[in-house]
């Protein structure tokens, strides 16, 4: 009896900080936000319950266009991060020796030691019209007049891929690491060539890592604020910017909160769709790695 009580107590004590954290910092603010999002403003300091803020989103093409744009660009960033991250992860997990592996991993980590803002400014210094890339190309005689690489969607995508690629590499390395080399050898012994082995053995095995990396990267990208704002050009609106504008410049917390929930719903939907398409579940992917 005593033993059981102690066990129970220790479970509660261990669980308490986590539960408090989730409840106070995640659940409670979201409830508050949800309450604000279903309030319609009818006059100064006068509110009514209603779904007007959500309806507003669907009737104004600018808003959902921005959301779709943000979503599709985030998917592109996710795909690029996967394409670039997979060979790196494979090299780290399967080809590199034990000693170089640590060094390689560290090299992937180093950019994260610098803040987002500084990294964005780094890109600005490189890409601007009078920046390093443009002037070295001029110096080398490749181009005659300075070229502006900054302030366009390509710059945004590049900056985002650079920021998030680590979150793709880490889960990939950990799944690929668990794969027995004998499986690859067996694939070759049975007559498979490189692409077949990759397609039939390595990718299916790495699927949980791929999916969990994609989920994390997609979520981070769709919710990012600084990089799209600083590197983006005249036409590149990002949905988080829209939310910020609603809250801060337009004092319209009601519709800002509604937009926040719509972003959450949209990204959840995309993730759900991705899981269904790849035949994975949250348990087999994110929870595993």
């Amino acid at each position, binding site marked *: 009896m005593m033993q059981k009580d102690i066990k129970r107590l220790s479970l509660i004590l261990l669980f308490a900080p986590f539960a*408090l954290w989730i409840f106070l910092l995640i659940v409670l603010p979201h409830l508050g936000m949800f309450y604000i999002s279903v309030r319609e403003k009818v006059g100064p*300091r006068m509110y009514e319950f209603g779904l007007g803020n959500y309806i507003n989103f669907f009737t104004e093409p600018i808003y959902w266009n*921005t959301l779709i744009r943000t979503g599709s660009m985030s998917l592109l960033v996710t795909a690029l991060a996967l394409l670039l991250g997979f060979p790196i992860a494979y090299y780290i997990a399967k080809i590199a020796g034990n000693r170089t592996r640590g060094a390689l991993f560290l090299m992937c980590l180093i950019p994260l030691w610098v803040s987002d803002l500084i990294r964005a400014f780094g890109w600005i210094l490189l890409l601007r019209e*009078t920046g390093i890339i443009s002037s070295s190309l001029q110096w080398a005689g490749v181009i005659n007049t300075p070229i*502006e690489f900054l302030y366009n969607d390509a710059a945004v995508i590049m900056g985002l891929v650079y920021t998030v690629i680590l979150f793709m590499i880490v889960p990939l390395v950990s799944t690929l690491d668990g794969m027995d080399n004998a499986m690859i050898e067996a694939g070759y012994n049975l007559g498979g060539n490189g692409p077949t082995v990759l397609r039939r053995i390595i990718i299916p095995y790495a699927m949980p890592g791929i999916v969990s990396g994609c989920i994390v990267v997609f979520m981070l990208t769709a919710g990012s604020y600084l990089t799209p704002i600083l590197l983006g050009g005249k*036409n590149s609106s990002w949905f988080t910017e829209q939310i910020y504008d609603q809250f801060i*410049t*337009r*004092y*319209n917390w009601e519709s800002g909160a509604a937009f926040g929930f719509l972003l959450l719903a949209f990204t959840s939907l995309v993730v759900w769709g991705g899981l269904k398409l790849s035949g994975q579940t949250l348990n087999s992917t994110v929870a595993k790695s």
Partner: protein
Amino acid sequence: MIMKLAMAGLLATTVMAVVPAQAETLRLLTWGSYAPDELVKKFEEKYPDITVEVTFSNNEEMIAKLRATGGAGFDLAQPSHDRIFAVQQEYNIYKPLDLSKINTDAMQAKLLDGVKANTTIDGEVYAVPHQWGTSGLMANKSVAPDVKAWGDLCDPQYKGKTSMRLKRTILLGMAFDMGEDPFAAYADLDKYQSILDKVADKLIDCKDNLKAYWKGGDDLSAMMMSGEIVASETWDSTAYKLYGENKDIVFVPPKTGALAWIDTFAIPRKGEADDAAYKWINFVLEPENVKIMSASTGAIAAVEGGKDLLPDDKKAAVNAAFTDADIDNLKFFANIPAGVEDMEGKTLEKIKAATGSE
């Protein structure tokens, strides 16, 4: 664990409760550079029992912060004069000022009366002026000598070499440039909407001519100094700073009049150090302190002879930019009525989202 947490919480609250008793803290919510270290140190030496804590922000974020807490967390805020009336009516985040505690004699009468007129609700005054400045144009004289009006930013001869901030200032400036008076239209919001629509069309056409929208003084300065742009919409203080480094870069008051703002002092409703706040207001308006402040902000203090208290290089920049006629032509931002922010916000979104021109 819970016990420990509770203990820690208890400890934290006691510590917080004890601090103000030992020394008063003045929590200042203001613009970057509006509380130079030198001045804060001087103030703390004069009033050893007051500690100054500074938070840098801008108009919108100041209001958002105060709104989130119902006016708690800060003891003195410095929003612009046009941002007080509607915000106070809507969110009730400031408390009336006790003018007897403020040395209003030091303030320039015209500005003081203007701000009072803008911020009086039910007979109570909510703000007094601190510093003023303008928004207008900045041009590099050596390559763009003809930039004289807001519309010149859309002149094809400067294609790809101009910039602006996609905020309400450019909407208003462009409206004046098109012969409208947006401030007069605040009284008739349908009329204002039609002006905004016209301005939006103009600015969407103009997008092609711009290099990028600037977002803060730093990226604007970098683009201007490197020569990537030759003209831009700007705050005057940013232009004055650049004038100090390159005499070709001058502030140009648009021919329809530069738009003038006055940053004010207002006390948040749940401020806890009113006396310290009044002391700070009076302190920074003393002539020798105005000099330190203006050197840091580049804005002109709302005191008699404020322009003469600017440091020499800034004074030269102001003189290079403004004639007396330009000063008479200033357009002071009018109070923003409720609802206008939403209309302007939608217009700005429309402009940002328009993709026809890239």
